[in-house]
């Protein structure tokens, strides 16, 4: 079996989740809106799933949960809803390190719809510039959208604090918590967060299912209009099997939270420490003191990430990279650039994202093969000499 360390990209659907879903393909296939027994069985289970999502988020009411097709749809729905709900407010505050689900939408709203977008910068460790954030807030802002945790570095933003600040100017606060849900404890009932996006496939549920949390009383305008499903907030026949899967995955995540915070974090720390010790000219990116428990992002200087991934793949190890080449674009990851990670290292940034399924043996294998891979590629690199880093080279980032 391969070693899968790309859980921030997607996770394995837990077999218990699959088992929970199967009857909703084969036996309980009715439309929950239908007036017969086939439909009734499904409707009840969907409400059970809603309750499980509610519990994982610590939300006050189950009606605050709307099922969607995933993180991207939840993000779009939240932002567009806020703009429609507050048409006089023509500004949006977000950060430079958001997922494209937010950034591309904001680019579009800016260039085509004339909204003003404030993109708050981060420091070298990926922490948000709170002064700039405060400056950007005003009564012109319809919605603030700041992610709970970053998908590349795992760095956590102080969303509760940020939400409180947004509230003072009457702006709605949305958070893309796709990477945080299931990895960090949450208590939305006692929170200023108005809307939150989550995605099933990041927490061992299937792809193509997610949810948007909308605090009771928050003005909301649906993106998809049609049938009365989800109380008119998201029309379209429910993806019942996937919703059931998401419910089960949330139940399991709640039970596994302690494992995530201790065992997974310990393995991640072990991996990081060993790599930095064994390999010259590499460093951990993001804020080591305030991160998701499962994410390690190590930048290796003078080599390119895709080449690293291809060699890792030969060893049966799956990871990911912020290099330009893996995305098919010319720029390395916008997150690395935003943190000021120099080009010499940004192209070699490699992300290992663990899950509760990751074992100590797997981590030890990575620790064993990684130095050889890096050395092999550095030998090919025109920027590397036998003596190590080129003479006179001063790392900008340390």
């Amino acid at each position, binding site marked *: 079996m391969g070693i899968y360390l790309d859980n921030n990209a997607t996770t394995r659907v837990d077999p218990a989740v699959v088992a929970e879903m199967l009857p909703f393909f084969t036996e309980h296939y009715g439309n929950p809106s239908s007036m017969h027994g086939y439909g009734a069985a499904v409707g009840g289970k969907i409400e059970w799933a809603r309750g499980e999502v509610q519990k994982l988020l610590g939300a006050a009411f189950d009606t605050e949960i709307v099922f969607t097709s995933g993180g991207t749809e939840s993000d779009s729905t939240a932002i567009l809803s806020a703009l429609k709900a507050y048409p006089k407010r023509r500004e949006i505050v977000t950060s430079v390190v958001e997922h494209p689900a937010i950034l591309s939408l904001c680019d579009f709203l800016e260039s085509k719809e004339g909204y003003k977008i404030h993109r708050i910068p981060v420091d070298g460790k990926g922490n948000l510039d709170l002064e700039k954030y405060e400056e950007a807030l005003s009564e012109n802002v319809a919605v603030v959208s700041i992610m709970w945790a970053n998908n590349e570095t795992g760095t956590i933003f102080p969303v509760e604090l940020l939400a409180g600040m947004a509230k003072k100017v009457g702006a709605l606060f949305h958070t893309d918590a796709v990477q945080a849900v299931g990895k960090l404890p949450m208590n939305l009932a006692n929170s200023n967060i108005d809307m939150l996006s989550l995605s099933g496939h990041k927490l061992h549920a299937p792809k193509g299912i997610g949810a948007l949390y909308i605090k009771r009383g928050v003005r909301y305008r649906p993106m998809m209009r049609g049938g009365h499903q989800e109380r008119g907030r998201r029309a379209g026949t429910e993806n019942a099997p996937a919703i059931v899967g998401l419910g089960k995955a949330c139940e399991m995540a709640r039970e596994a939270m302690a494992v995530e915070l201790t065992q997974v974090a310990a393995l991640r720390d072990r991996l990081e420490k060993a790599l930095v010790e064994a390999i010259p000219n590499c460093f951990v990116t993001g804020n080591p003191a305030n991160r998701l428990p499962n994410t390690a992002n190590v930048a290796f200087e003078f080599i390119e*990430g895709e080449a690293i991934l291809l060699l890792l793949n030969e060893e049966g190890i799956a990871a990911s990279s912020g*290099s*330009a080449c893996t995305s098919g674009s010319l720029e*390395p990851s916008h997150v690395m650039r935003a943190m000021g990670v120099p*080009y010499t290292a940004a192209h070699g940034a490699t992300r290992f994202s663990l899950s509760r399924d990751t074992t100590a043996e797997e981590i030890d294998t990575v620790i064993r093969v990684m130095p050889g891979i890096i050395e092999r590629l550095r030998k*090919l690199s*025109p920027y590397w000499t036998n003596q190590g880093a080129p003479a006179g080279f001063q790392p900008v980032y340390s």
Partner: protein
Amino acid sequence: MWNYSDKLKEHFFNPKNAGVLEEANAVGEVGSISCGDALRLMLKVEPETQVIQDARFQTFGCGSAIASSSALTEMIIGKTVDEALTVTNKDIADFLEGLPPEKMHCSVMGAEALRAAIANYRGEEWVDDHEEGELICKCFGVDAAMIERAVEVNALTTLEQVTNYTKAGASCKTCHEKIEDLLETLLAKQGKTLEPVAAKEPAAAVVGLDEIAPLAAKPAAPVKKLSNVQRMQIVMAALDEMRPYLKKDGGDVELIDIDGKNIYVRLSGACSGCQMASVTIEGIQTKLVEKLGELVRVIPHTMMAAE
């Protein structure tokens, strides 16, 4: 995950001629660490015979960059300098049994490093005039920089023109939004705006329908039927108009026959046989329908019914 060919993988996992060539008398360096690709090519050229006796490379870059470098050295060792100069980026890509469209620039980097190294050997100056931008059209590997140049040099103002000049957008058409966005930005710089496309372009089919049920007020449509000679003249003139575009790509077009609604043409040079052929045919057909004001079919002569 990229769909890399076995040949490419072989050259990535076991690159040939990697490392420093101490006795090099020609060195070419292209790319930079900031764009994520850099290649240093070192050659040892025998001065008497001008034969490249040895070649080595050092590359910072992705799998295809490393494989392209390795392939390049294999392709040029044993060739004279002049022979080596005939190697194009496409040859490198072909040698590797193809590269994904997003990765074609890796082969371009190889071809440029070669030219830089040979210029260095000859004591000439080599300027890196290569810029690249975001890949806009995957089907034809056209990036933003290419479109920008075409728009500036030829004062293009519409999506259709961009397609005619660069091919971008001529096949699956999924890149049209990106092209229009780019065009809008470029035109804005010149103080112009992108004309919104007419609600629905008068499609060829509409002309055909009109023949069945002519509308009362039909401004542009031909009032009376054209004679055969008139039709031929119009077709010839239209083909002449398109010829410069085709020649730019090393191709040409020739009128073979007009048989009622069927117009037979011969594509030659780079146009024939390439994946562009059907696109080119489609382009010619659109043009002819527009000029003739009637629905016609353009057919490659190879598909003419055998006599």
